[in-house]
């Protein structure tokens, strides 16, 4: 019973503490956020175009390879592959950026907490905020163009929900990335494999029958099914919602506990 209560407390703490810390340090948070945004474009010729141009170019590359060269088509469903690709790929790029950066988060911000007390709890939300804003804005206009205002408004909830779901992974990746250098090295590969194992670059219907049932082991498959279901009116089941939610619940408590226990180590290890 105590373990159960402790886990509930950690789950609540995992969500509430980072947000509470951000609210309590709002001016600090916005200052760092602004700087993060400026850093993305400073010193470049195209300046503010880059935050949108970068994902657009990546998507163009994937579309060219999978849509043009491999000629991926939905068989008998009449879906537009480019629209399908864009709907899944933009949130994925956001996810990949957040997870990748979380592994180097503590090293990146070490000058801020090495010699002074600094609220380390704000960092996970800080590194999520910029991709969420940048990709969220691009996603809104993309869906406005592809599906109209209704879909565009619905798309606004996609990035924040993705980020909330990523919170436990971000907490874990940030600590593991600091203490285990091998983990940081492995993350790009893990992200690439996850991308290929998630129905983003292909339709789930294209998979062989024997494999189809296994794609749901990957929670990102469920999340993508939900995203496509909401924004492209494709079929999805409640299990697509229940499975990732359960995984999130199971991960969040231990991830927060892990993060909390790591804080004294983080302050001293650098």
């Amino acid at each position, binding site marked *: 019973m105590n373990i159960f209560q402790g886990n509930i407390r950690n789950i609540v703490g995992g969500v509430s503490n980072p947000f509470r810390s951000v609210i309590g340090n709002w*001016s*600090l948070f916005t200052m760092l956020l602004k700087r993060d945004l400026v850093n993305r474009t400073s010193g470049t010729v195209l300046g503010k175009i880059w935050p949108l141009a970068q994902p657009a170019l990546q998507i163009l590359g994937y579309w060219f390879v999978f849509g043009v060269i491999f000629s991926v088509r939905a068989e008998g469903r009449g879906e537009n592959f480019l629209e399908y690709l864009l709907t899944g790929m933009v949130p994925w790029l956001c996810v990949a950026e957040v997870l990748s950066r979380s592994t180097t988060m503590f090293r990146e911000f070490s000058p801020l907490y*090495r010699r002074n*007390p600094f609220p380390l709890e704000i960092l996970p939300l800080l590194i999520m905020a910029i991709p969420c804003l940048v990709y969220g804005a691009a996603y809104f206009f993309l869906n406005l163009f592809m599906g109209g205002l209704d879909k565009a408004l619905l798309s606004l909830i996609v990035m924040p929900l993705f980020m909330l779901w990523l919170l436990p992974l971000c907490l874990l990746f940030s600590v593991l990335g600091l203490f285990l250098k091998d983990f940081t090295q492995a993350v790009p590969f893990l992200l690439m494999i996850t991308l290929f194992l998630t129905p983003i670059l292909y339709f789930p219907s294209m998979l062989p029958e024997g494999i189809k049932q296994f794609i749901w082991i990957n929670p990102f498959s469920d999340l993508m099914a939900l995203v496509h279901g909401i924004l492209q009116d494709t079929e999805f089941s409640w299990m697509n919602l229940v499975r990732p939610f359960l995984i999130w619940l199971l991960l969040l408590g231990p991830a927060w506990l892990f993060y909390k226990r790591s804080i004294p180590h983080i302050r001293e290890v650098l």
Partner: protein
Amino acid sequence: MTDIAISLQGVSKYYKYYEKELDRVKEIMSGKPRFQKIEALKNINLEVGKGEVLGVIGRNGAGKSTLLKVLSDTILPSSGEISVNGRIAALLELGASFHPDMTGKENVYLSGAIKGMTKKDIDAIYEEILAFAEIGEFISRPVKTYSSGMFVRLAFSIATHIDPEILIIDEALSVGDGAFSRKSFDRIMDFKEAGKTILFCSHSMYQVEVLCDRVVWLEKGEVRKIGKPVDVITEYSNKMRMASPRKESLGTTIKGDESSENHEAAETPVKSTSVKAVPHILDIQVKVESNISKVHKVVSEVSDLEVTVLFGPGEGVPLASIAVALSGGDGRIISSAGSVQDAITLKINESGQGEARILFPKLPLLRGNYFLDVALLCEKGIHLYEAVRQAAEIHVEQNGLERGIVKLPHEWLS
């Protein structure tokens, strides 16, 4: 309303050493210890009163920096209770929590925000911070482009302008070069006079003794002694001398901002003719019987020793003071004389140089080798501008058979 600014009850701190970083991760996951302890502080009990200036001394590795980090909440203690009553500003290892990509101005606001200040609060002191730091247009450039001096000046300016009730300074009383060093020193003296609590860690025993009301000597993470500066520093200095005899060479010059007993002093020629804004030693002449030299043979109770120090007076600062010390080969000061202590006001000579002349008539030192040290200090005799260690070497011969270091004036009563 308590009169205690800082209270430590049984505070201990150990650092964790892991053979493999994976052990650290396993420990965080399981809660089962897998580390080797490196003890930095052991059961520290200490109270610092409001308005008190506490010096923290000790050898490298004694736990001084750890104590200050624990107090400034940069690291957590392993056990014990810490109570801090008032806003703290800390200058640890001469640094600040600067974001390297942010401009100086942004970092001012960032530092304030970390301290819980609002934008309005920081707006009110921003111009003062900027004026004090003297970094001009660099304030609009990223701090990663700053020189180390500019970085430190901005850090110091922020730390001392956010109106802390408690100021923690690790390793340097006065930071930066020349004029800024003096200015930062004055700023800290203002803090002291304003009745703020200061924790001051330094290897410069002279500055600790002058500035502090009380001194705590840390050794191997424990409080070895705490008390009046003169008592603690005397015992500490004796111990240090026995542990590591002096190894400096003749004419070693030390600038005020590097005045540390453990530092490796840069060896530079004593004689200097460069024009500087900060008071600086130009020349030291040591004369015995019309003979000016760096090495003298003198006869005890017969020879007169005359020392002339010429110094550049600097700009915009009161005329400096001079102190001269005679020490033995082990570095122990045998005797010293200071123009401030003797209430002597130095003068500028016709060449525009500051000049100090002192005579030790019929030098009463007994047989042995001695060294002459010279220090150029501020008008109050506290802030060190420059020191020349072993400016001259004195070989004393004697006619009699007395033993010891000095022949005290005495008379036989029967």
